[in-house]
């Protein structure tokens, strides 16, 4: 990050944040996407992704964290994630089964990423809701801290 406008406080923390934030993001998204194949899932992956928000705050301060992550957008995205989940869960009713029923489960080979029907999409929706929701909560709490410091 060679942006001159960004105020950098501590080089060690910033370097660590630069190093770990991408890892957190990749790992979290990996866990969300592979929720139907491996341990973990939407919630766990979502929280790991949201931890990247903490790293950005630690490295670059509250201003940068809010400018990059846009709390209002996160708030709306959380509602979108919840709506996505409801939609995929309702698909079960539309396809003549019960609510939350996994449909299209015959698509793909077992073990592939796109192989388990709507359970994959529901898992993704949960992950999206959690990463935006927890991210928003983290920014909100840091916002309280930032106000206290000012």
């Amino acid at each position: 990050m060679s942006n001159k406008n960004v105020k950098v406080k501590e080089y060690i923390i910033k370097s660590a944040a630069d190093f770990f934030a991408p890892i957190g993001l990749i790992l979290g998204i990996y866990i969300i996407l592979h929720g139907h194949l491996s341990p973990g899932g939407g919630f766990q992956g979502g929280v790991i992704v949201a931890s990247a928000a903490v790293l950005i705050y630690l490295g670059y301060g509250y201003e940068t964290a809010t400018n990059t992550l846009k709390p209002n957008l996160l708030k709306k995205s959380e509602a979108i994630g919840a709506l996505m989940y409801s939609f995929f869960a309702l698909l079960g009713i539309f396809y003549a089964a019960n609510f939350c029923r996994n449909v299209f489960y015959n698509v793909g080979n077992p073990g592939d990423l796109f192989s388990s029907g709507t359970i994959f999409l529901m898992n993704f929706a949960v992950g999206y809701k959690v990463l935006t929701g927890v991210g928003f909560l983290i920014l909100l709490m840091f916002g309280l801290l930032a106000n206290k410091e000012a």
Partner: protein
Amino acid sequence: MTQHLPILAIITLFIGAFIVALIKEKNEVLRNTVVLIATFMSFIFTLMMYKPIIGEGNIITYWMGNWEPVQNWAIGIGLEVDQLSLFFGLFISLSIVLSALYSFKYIEKETGKDKYYVLFLMMSASVMGFIFTGDLFNMYVMIEIMTFASVALTAFRNNKPEAVEAGFKYIAIGSIGSSLILLATVIIYAQFHTLNLAQIAGELHNNYTITTLFALALMVVGYAVKVFAVPTHFVAPDAYMTAPSSISMLFSGIVNKAAVYGILRVLYVVYQSMNLPSVQFMLIFWGTVTMFIGVTMALAQHDFKRLLAFHSISQIGYVITGIGLATALGITGGLYHALNHTLFKGLLFLCAGAVYYATGTTDLDKLGGLAKRMPQTALIFIIGAFSISGIPPFNGFVSKWIIYQASYEAGYAPVTIIALIVSVMTLASFIKVAQSAFFGQLPKEFKNVEEVPLSMRVPMWIMAILCIVGGIFPSSFTKYLITPAANAVMNSAKYVEVMMGPEFASKFYNNLGNAPVIDYKLAGYWQPIAWLILFGILLLAFTLVALLGGFNPKHFSYSDEEDAKYDVFYSGESAEFSHVGGSDLFWGLKYQFRHYFDLMHKIHNGVVNDYALSVVLTAAVVLLYVFTFVR
């Protein structure tokens, strides 16, 4: 289609909440439309369940994701809607619609309306989920969503310090209650390795251990905190007072009722413990104490909504007493009173909201004479006040009468007497409210207040009409609503059989299929025509006396005492403004019982630590009681 109705009734409200979260705060019309459609659809879905469930006597079961029991072992989350759930669902979804309708105008001038409606719909959805679920952990999750939404809504007017304080108290006490429920859930899960209510009910049938009794005690106290039974009621007045009135209505109408449903479900269906005299006595004692302390505290209040909150506690005492009697008549009375309490207490809270909307205060010492400016609100308030006081021909009379009769027949005559006294005190304190808020002299600053808008009056009128209908046609109400629900309460075996299959149920129950059906006769207690004639005669006599000048103050002799505060009050002195404020109408009673009121005042000290301690102490006492007496 029928089997999907329960989940649709729940999920429409949740989807409504998520859509409202996406709508911009300024876009009022779209948001109100979404709220109205979501609540109304939920109500319609609930109504559509009436015919299959109560009409034909079926029970709807629904396994999420088609995860049906394997080898008599429930592995999925199930919904199960029997007559009891549907009975609660019907009036809960109706009051959600009415509260939404009322909210549109009522909170028009507030900020943060988008958050209000999100939380409103979340709370409504969680209550619907709570009463339709057949899964113990789902019950916990839903009551937790409900508690947190209620806490946030309590602190909705966060420009007022008392609102934030009430929210804090509520979250502290409510969390203790939730924790107790969670602990009980965990213990039951550890014992039976299942969370399905029907399966647990089967396993628990005549099979108590110390561990399950421990869970029972924790569960009862947890729901008692949510229902605001007396030693845990301290947050209720604060929360009811500071929340917007449309929300106070839901607190007493749906949040409280959800907890009543929880107690019923746990004690009657899951534990089947209500044939034990010790459990019956516990509930009756608890309910009686709750109704008495609630009403005496209400007599001492100066704030319209705070007074209503204490009455809410008191009326819930009736419900608990009724269901604690565990006779057919007692359950009928308790359920009927739960329905009526939702109607009349919702109505009264909406009246308080109308007064607040018009005048900006609910302090009884400042109000007065509003009947001239707000005649419809005053009339609706009188209907609500008569209903809650148990005056014929309104609905409160019917359910209270059933409870008197049931408690007397069950051999609890002292309870009957206390219930009667409490009813009289209820009337007394509502005379005070009517006198302080709607009659007497109109203060100058309220000369120009106007009647509330139509969209606020419509929900009030609907509830008022239901109050009257419930009082005039009690036999059809009991026949088409209450008795099926009461039968479902008594018939745990059927609940298990429908959910888990006859094979599973026959392992535990001997007499499947021929469960006792309540043979309930109305016993000739209610003849509306005779009461109506009596009412007419009384009204005529009253009018006659009034016309002859019987109430003219000059016929009474009263001395000119120095301190006008302690004058007996007569209306119509022209000399000076002699409005009797909220405090002074029953000063004699309060003086006589000053030691009692002093004690109560000391107990309600507003310190949240003490309140939390009282909840913990209640839990300890109930635990001791259950371990000692319940076998």
